[in-house]
């Protein structure tokens, strides 16, 4: 296997081999927040489209100007074709932003009668759960992914994962939500409604009595009634939620899926990347490799920071060539940052020598046009 450039001991990630392979149907970009996941997903999508594939990119929470560069101006849950993509090879790029609440509403509508769906939508607990539960975004991203896959209109689906604290949330949250909606507590709450209250209470004993007593005292009877009504209305969908989460989870294990871990050369980001790599391997999920964004490098790697500084000091002392001295200090600072980035990368590689890496150089400006995305795509391709 070829080794990476820039003195890296890691194998070079050949992203083209992964995303242009007709067998690859889903690419999942994951990593901790703020490492450039959305940009990476968009760049992968664009590169695959311009190589002739029909691609859809599912983004979760893109930066405004990046979204605009792909023509995404609204959260409407519908893939739209991105203008400005080179059609020479017959490919197309579509993009969409996830609307978590709408996706949740769609599931509810699909699994209940119109009257019941109305009841659910109006319940304050549903509103709270569908718009702010910490796992809802992850669940809905998975749900949308499996819907897009089922439509089978695209050669490749590129998914950006929600900006969660931990990269692992993407894998765990859907199951947690599924388990929760299917859970024992909900059944307990539901029980009196189903069996006519009092008769049931006698049977289940003290624990449920205690539960209602405490809840009534803390949250009041109104809240408890809303909660019961919500649980009752959702009951028909319990099995559905868990089953769907499981189906998508299995889909991610199939050979048509490739995970790309996105990171930046920072301790926290690489720590998350490391957890994620271990986890994917434990779950036998297919890891393509890591995209390491924002790698700083120097155009004059042979001139060390120390030597540049010594020379700058000497020029300053002689009182001549002020500009050259300043430029040498710019180089010294940059050479130090670049060395630091390489050290971070090498530490990751010594713990995970098998993970191929594609490095993307740091850019002085944020990415907001297709040309920049194209350049990133080229850098990732190696």
């Amino acid at each position, binding site marked *: 296997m070829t080794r990476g450039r820039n003195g890296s001991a890691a194998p070079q990630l050949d992203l083209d081999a992964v995303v242009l392979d007709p067998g690859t149907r889903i690419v999942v970009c994951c990593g901790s927040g*703020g490492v450039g996941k959305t940009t990476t997903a968009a760049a992968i999508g664009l590169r695959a489209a311009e190589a002739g594939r029909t691609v859809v990119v599912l983004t979760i929470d893109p930066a405004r100007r990046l979204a605009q560069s792909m023509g995404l101006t609204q959260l409407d849950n519908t893939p739209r074709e991105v203008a400005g993509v080179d059609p020479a090879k017959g490919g197309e790029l579509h993009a969409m932003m996830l609307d978590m609440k709408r996706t949740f509403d769609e599931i509810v509508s699909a699994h209940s009668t119109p009257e019941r769906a109305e009841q659910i939508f109006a319940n304050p607990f549903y509103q709270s759960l569908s718009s702010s539960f910490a796992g809802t975004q992850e669940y809905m991203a998975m749900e949308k992914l499996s819907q897009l896959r089922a439509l089978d209109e695209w050669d490749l689906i590129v998914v950006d994962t929600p900006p969660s604290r931990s990269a692992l949330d993407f894998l765990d949250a859907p199951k947690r939500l599924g388990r929760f909606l299917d859970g024992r507590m909900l059944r307990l709450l539901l029980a009196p409604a189903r069996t006519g209250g009092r008769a049931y209470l006698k049977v289940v004993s003290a624990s449920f009595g205690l539960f209602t007593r405490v809840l009534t005292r803390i949250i009041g009877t109104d809240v408890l009634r809303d909660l019961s009504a919500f649980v009752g209305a959702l009951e028909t969908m319990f099995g559905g939620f868990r089953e769907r989460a499981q189906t998508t989870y299995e889909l991610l294990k199939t050979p048509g899926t490739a995970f790309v871990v996105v990171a930046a050369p920072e301790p926290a980001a690489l720590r998350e990347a490391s957890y994620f790599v271990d986890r994917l391997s434990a779950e036998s999920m297919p890891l393509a490799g890591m995209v390491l964004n924002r790698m700083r490098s120097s155009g004059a790697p042979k001139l060390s920071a120390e030597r540049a500084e010594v020379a700058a000091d000497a020029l300053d002392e002689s009182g001549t060539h002020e500009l050259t001295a*300043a430029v040498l200090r*710019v180089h010294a600072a940059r050479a130090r940052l670049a060395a630091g980035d390489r050290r971070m990368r090498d530490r990751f590689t010594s713990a995970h020598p098998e993970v191929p890496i594609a490095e993307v150089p740091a850019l002085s400006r944020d990415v907001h046009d297709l040309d920049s995305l194209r350049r990133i795509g080229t850098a990732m391709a190696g």
Partner: protein
Amino acid sequence: MVTGKGGTGKTTAAAALALALAAGGRRTLVVEVEGRQGLAQLFDTPPLPYEERRIASAPGGGEVRALAVDVEEALLEYLAMFYNLRSAGRALRRMGAVDFATTIAPGMRDVLLTGKVKEAVTRTRQGHRVYDAVVLDAPPTGRITRFLNVTAEVAGLAKVGPIKTQSDGVMAVLRSPQTAVHVVTLLEEMPVQETVDAVTELRAAHLPVGSVIVNMTRPPLLPEPVLAAGRIDTAELRAGLAAAGLDAKLAPALATEAVEHAERWQVEDDNRGTLTGLDLPTIELPFLAGPVDLGGLYELAELLRPEEVAA
């Protein structure tokens, strides 16, 4: 309250602020609520339990304590304190009820977390405040307003009753002049945009915004005219390199680096201008090479003195 986009160093800023506010014999508490143990990593201590622990002493005899709030523990404590329901609380936890309650109503979770902060702020012993200041390493900018606006969060769930009463009490403290929400940012486009958005939202929710803390700033290394022009005289550079005994062929590569440095400085300056438009006190903290340690925190704390931060 210290918020900021992920990656801007808000935990570092919160810890440095707690140190700064403890100077001169005062006592502060720094609280984290997201279960990441960022404070323990920063102060190089074992993971923090749900218990206030001394983690550093401040210049002049003050001390900083730290607390990692766990939602379940906070709920059990709340049940014990206000309802005398300690054992019932434990039974409920075994049934998964606590997890259930905080999952189905995320607003309840935030009321518990901010409620714990309020409790620490208002706690007294023998007629004196236990803490001179409490610093919260708060959720990131994207969630901060919702997190602090607890009354609005539970309004849909509980119009009367104990939760409502509790959230009103917390809200009164959060909206009072005792509170300041500081926003940590970098001079990069996305963090600055999120800072502007967060300040707008906080103001709309009548939450008191404190200062903007610009983290990891680096001084420009080139003379002002070169920064402004974004061009380098390569002939002059070649001559200078030769005079310094270096290979003049390095000139184009070094010139490119210098131009990129000037470009980055321009972008940073534009972002600085956007932040100035917020009309808030702004403090710049320097970039520290390598991982931040206790020495680095003291260095940053020097710059976050109360009179600078408007805290």
